[in-house]
């Protein structure tokens, strides 16, 4: 076997490992989201994440992949439905390896979107929206930027998906948050807000750590191969930005509130990861640190801003994936170096290197167009669903928790059953 054949196999292996790592991020999201919410919804959150991953996979297989990579027009791909190409590697990735990697990104984006539904949406809404998002929202944006669509023609740089995966998911989450309205008890009559604290910071931290590790696949395998060992550089940038994000968020929240809030610090690490996702293959390590630091600072103020706007975002999906997703995409337009952009024919160098606003303009266009599309379509879908079947569970179901109301059993049976006995007893005594 000659060396080039070995390299091809290594490319395939690396991207397959990447697919596994990205899929494992779903585990990170389960812990992150369950830890950041209340006990009575923990089983529901874990369970719905698994079955919506199942739905997303089948829909992506049936139509999603085709809409992204099929032959079509600048707006959408229109072939390769019910994907079944089992041909062997021909100098590059096998189609199946490529598909496996791509489907995981769609699932991550879907899971981010569901962050905006937390603790109050009906199970049926998860099912329907999982289908529609995986068919008509994510694939369209992915086609525009990665599938040879109109933004790719403009030279849009999004190495691993700050816009495609994170912003798209966050925009759907924003639409859901707006239509669902805040959880019961989040805001007081005088407009002040309460901290409905998540039930397990350790889960949240482990969730972040798993996501962090998964991100090495997310970004690292977006090299689509092992050539020149470039994946190492991408992983280095990823690690630096995540670290910088955590530190920046912790110091910022401490400076603002006087306490080094743990959930905010954890969101800072995620912010660093989201921020570097677009630029991890385009910028120098020092710039990765700066990008991560700014992401970490932004996430703190963004969380506060959404809270003030009465947008109840239990797991900070809007801030981490939305606000910082935008920043990450724009940062390319500032920091992309010529050797990794202009010289290899992938867009232009950033403002600090090329001296022009060209790339920054392209990045901005990408953010606005993709963000607007994802938001508007999600909003329409959810609004219609709201009118037809209603998005939100009843007040009673929300108070008892979605574990019992939607699934019939608790994630923490001993704890929650003891709680409900207490409530019943109190009610009896009052009578």
């Amino acid at each position, binding site marked *: 076997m000659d060396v080039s054949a070995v390299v091809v196999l290594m490319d395939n292996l690396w991207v397959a490992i990447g697919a596994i790592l990205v899929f494992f991020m779903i585990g990170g999201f389960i812990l992150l989201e369950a830890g950041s919410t209340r006990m009575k919804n923990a089983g529901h959150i874990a369970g719905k994440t698994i079955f919506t991953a199942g739905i997303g996979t089948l829909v992506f297989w049936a139509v999603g992949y085709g809409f992204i990579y099929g032959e079509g027009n600048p707006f959408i791909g229109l072939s390769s439905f019910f994907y079944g190409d089992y041909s062997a590697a021909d100098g590059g990735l096998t189609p199946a390896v490529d598909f496996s990697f791509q489907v995981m990104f769609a699932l991550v984006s879907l899971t981010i979107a569901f962050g905006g539904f937390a603790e109050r949406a009906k199970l049926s809404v998860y099912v329907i929206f999982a289908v529609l998002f995986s068919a008509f929202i994510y694939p369209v944006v992915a086609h525009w930027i990665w599938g040879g669509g109109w933004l790719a023609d403009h030279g849009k740089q999004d190495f691993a998906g700050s816009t495609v995966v994170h912003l798209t998911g966050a925009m759907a989450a924003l639409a859901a948050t707006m239509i669902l309205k805040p959880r019961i008890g989040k805001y007081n009559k*005088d407009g*002040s807000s309460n901290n409905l604290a998540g039930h397990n910071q350790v889960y949240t931290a482990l969730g972040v750590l798993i996501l962090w590790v998964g991100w090495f696949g997310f970004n690292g395998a977006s090299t689509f191969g092992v050539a020149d060992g470039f994946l190492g550089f991408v992983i280095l940038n990823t690690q630096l930005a995540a670290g910088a994000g955590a530190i920046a968020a912790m110091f910022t929240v401490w400076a*603002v509130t006087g306490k080094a809030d743990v959930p905010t610090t954890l969101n800072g690490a995620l912010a660093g990861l989201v921020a570097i996702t677009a630029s991890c293959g385009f910028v120098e390590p020092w710039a990765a640190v700066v990008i991560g630091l700014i992401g970490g600072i932004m996430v703190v103020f963004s969380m506060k801003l959404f809270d003030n706007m009465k947008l109840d975002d239990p797991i900070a999906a809007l801030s981490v994936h939305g606000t910082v997703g935008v920043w990450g995409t724009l940062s390319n337009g500032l920091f992309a170096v010529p050797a990794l952009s202009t010289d290899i024919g992938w867009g232009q160098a950033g403002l600090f290197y090329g001296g022009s606003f060209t790339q920054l303009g392209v990045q901005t266009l990408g953010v606005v167009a993709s963000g607007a599309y994802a938001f508007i379509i999600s909003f329409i879908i959810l609004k219609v669903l709201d009118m037809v079947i209603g998005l939100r569970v009843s007040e009673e179901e929300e108070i008892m928790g979605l574990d019992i109301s939607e699934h019939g059993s608790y994630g923490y049976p001993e704890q929650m059953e003891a709680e409900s006995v207490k409530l019943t007893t109190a009610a009896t005594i009052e009578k």
Partner: protein
Amino acid sequence: METYETIKQWKEQHISSFLDSSKSLNEFHDQVMLKVLKVALRKMNKSPIPCQFTWFITGSGGRLEQGLISDQDHGIVYLNSNGENEAYFLALGEEISYGLHIVGYPYCKGNIMSSNPVWCKSIEKWENQLMQWMEDESWEVMRYLQIFYDARQLFGNPENLVRLKKIIYQYQLQNPNLLKRIAANMKHVKNAIGPMGQIMVEQYGIYQGYINLKYTAFIPYVNSIRLLSIKEGVFENSTVDRLEKLSQMEQYKKLLKHCKSNFLHLIDVRMTILNAMNYDDTHYLNVKKLTNDQRKEIKKVLKDGKSLHDHVMALILQ
């Protein structure tokens, strides 16, 4: 005949005319509580009272720093130690606590009430208890010791309290470690000014955007001044009176220069919180409603309080 209910009504009718100064408000509270004591004594239905006793209040009431609404903190020192007296005064303590509760002083969450045997003792047993506390040095009793130091007699002979407080003063002269233990107990204060010079407000809940005056402003002043008072044997009760005494001492002149005016300002600010519906409300100040000048002023008070606290800590813990 006066009952707790009639006292309650009387209090509600008249309190508004005592709101022009902290002094008159505190005198009014004293009056109300004394009325409660009288009813409680009558309800005990025992004449004469078995022995002489002193009924004291402590906490903010002890320091003459009560706001509009205040929970109850009080205790009893009686003269003769015997089983019968013990039973009588504990029962009286329970009656008083109940009466105060009815009249509008909620029960003390920390159980600092005459109904609690720890706070209702003969003078001899009080002496033993104080000695035990000081020798024990555990975290909890250091707090009791500070609370006791704020005790002020509302009924009975005030000398009993001075006698007991002198024990604390004398003990610390021989055992400098006591002050260090008290200092360690009060070391934590809620930070009021952020690293960027901003006033730190509550992040969540119905007091979002408010500052907690009790923890960020009053406590640093009150605790620091009390600690210096224990050290120097100042037996005055109010923080302002303590400050006056301490300021005359050469070693504190510089440190306490603006303290009195700051503290008086703080009391004035709290007197402006008139829409309080419960005890918690009286501690929270809405920063957004302050003018720029008011905000500057309160910021100075908060900063000076922190700096006073830091200085006193350094002085004692050095």
